[in-house]
């Protein structure tokens, strides 16, 4: 796991509420056995028409979105299925942070384990970000802050353990395996067994 401390990028705005994981990556692309190369399927049915041609009106297909790493989404981003293919597709496409007023639980957990930063802001800040696409944002993972072009600093909540792992580049599986003696003891002493 690579250490992630800072993301500096222009924003791209997808204002629709309740963007679900089926929109992020449709189920028919889940027959893969790999986590690589899923960026081509990101928002597939919003990006491409039935003939495979780019839908030019879709925000990610517009020239201004080129290279943007911070996606501002509508409320309740990432709802729906538990498919980790959703953060894999976003990261592979080049999106490194998602900002919304609410981010669905499983999607948020999956994102944090892959280095995609889920950022929840209040409604006022969200409105500002939605109405100002393409602005330069500076995210510090270590400080849990989002800095606007005018220098205004917004703190965002992030689980302290997840942040520590992101900043230090620690794999959570390694941490969990360090608990194996305690886990074994739990198994041997619990009052009932499954």
């Amino acid at each position, binding site marked *: 796991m690579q250490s992630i401390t800072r993301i500096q990028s222009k924003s791209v705005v997808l*204002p*629709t*509420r*309740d963007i*679900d994981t*089926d*929109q992020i990556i*449709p*189920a*028919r692309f*889940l*027959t*893969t*056995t*790999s*986590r690589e190369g899923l960026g081509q399927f990101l928002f597939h*049915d919003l990006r491409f028409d*039935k003939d495979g041609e780019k839908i030019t009106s879709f925000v990610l297909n517009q020239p201004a979105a080129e290279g943007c790493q911070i996606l501002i989404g*509508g*409320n*309740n981003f990432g*709802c*729906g*299925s*538990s*498919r*980790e293919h959703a953060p894999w597709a976003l990261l592979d496409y080049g999106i490194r942070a998602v900002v919304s007023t*609410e981010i*669905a*639980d*499983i999607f948020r*957990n*999956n994102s944090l*384990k*892959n280095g995609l930063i889920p950022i929840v802001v209040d409604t006022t800040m969200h409105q500002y970000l939605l109405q100002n696409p393409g602005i330069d944002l500076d995210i510090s993972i270590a400080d849990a802050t989002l800095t606007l072009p005018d220098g205004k600093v917004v703190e965002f909540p992030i*689980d*302290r*353990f997840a942040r*520590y792992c992101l900043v230090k580049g620690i794999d*959570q*599986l390694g*941490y*969990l*395996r360090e*608990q*194996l003696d*305690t*886990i074994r003891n*739990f*198994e041997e002493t*619990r009052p*009932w067994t*499954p």
Partner: protein
Amino acid sequence: MRGAKTLFEKVWSDHVVVDETRDTPAVLYIDLHLIHEVTTPQAFSVLQQHDLAVRRPDLTLATMDHSTPTTPVSSFKDVKVVGANAARQIARMEENCRDFGIELLGFGSEQRGIVHVIGPELGATQPGKTIVCGDSHTSTHGAFGALAFGIGTTEVGHVLATQCLLQRKPRTLAINVDGHLPAGVSSKDLILAIIGQIGVDGGTGHVIEYRGPAITALDMEARMTICNMSIEAGARAGMIAPDDVTFEYLQGRPRSPRGADWDAAVARWRELPSDADAEFDQSVSISAAQLEPMVTFGTNPGMVVGINEPVPDNTGDPSYRKALDYMRVPTGKPLTETTVDVVFVGSCTNSRLSDLQQAANILQGHKIADGVRMLVVPGSQQIKKEAEALGLDRIFIASGAEWRESGCSMCLGMNGDTVSNGQLSVSTSNRNFEGRQGIGARTVLASPMTAAASAIAGRVADPRQYLS
């Protein structure tokens, strides 16, 4: 009273291996890990890279359901998987289970089926257990008073390697349901109404406990439908207190405890319901008595109305407008004028025997309308056999419906069973997301009774007109 606990808190605290601190999440022990072909190959790859074994294969149970075809076959040897990638994924599942020593209920097993159908059916799902699966509808198992939730593939790897997860304790939400469901209104309608009331993010960060007379009156299959859709309200999990209905369902199932073990288990399970004075972080009340059959009109399960109610006009909201444009549904009118192309009865939400019986009761003596394709996909091979023993397959086939092998099928269209672009589907599944059932597919979520009535009428229809 100090120390009064909810059902969730009892199950949670019984599984904490290492306490949560400000800096570190709890280490939570997992009693049952269900796995399927779609969300596990990358997790097994991680184990292989690190040269790790599956720590507790005895607590891991595998099946194949998402990518598997449902086309009727006389022998599993005739099964033809649709698409090279799906075939590779299924082959990979068979290899991984063999190499890591995990029991796989695969092709040829009479116990194969949708993962959230077979867990309970086999008695592997039990009160007080922690159950996870790389699948958001794992919340289904909460109907037994288990703490069951969906996880991502990285977490699947964590459970395979350690039998534990790193978790922050969620908050609790009580949903109290008074009254009793009227005739023609099922638990599917109730959960759709609940999601309509609290919203698709109403449960975010919470574990729901469904309570009250309308819940305790439900049989286990109806309770599973409720808990199944907890995730559609954004909840981490949904739970229902175990009671005699639960114990009666479980007794004698292949993996249920037996003899003295059964008595000890039931005694332990009776302690699980929330203490009378336990407090929830939030609570919501709803009455079942006035409910109608419910149908969704938009592109998330919270966009739902009673079958005879007009679609509300909230089109000043761009997200709402976008959903209605996709669905091509007019506002101000009920959905009952909408023409139906496809009817799907199946999925981990509504594919159990009672669901099929409810659909068959409506269909009996009727033909489905010209131009409507109806798929009936039992949740497991076992349910298929039971339904055939009751003659339900003959009712479906006589009405013009297709009777299939078990699987997830048209709920998410991964296996070749899809709704065509622009077609309208009345579906007993759980998600009406854009493109969920196929590119451009328009999904109306409903109960098995409403789905069957709609197949007969050729338009979205109130099942109560067909009740005998």
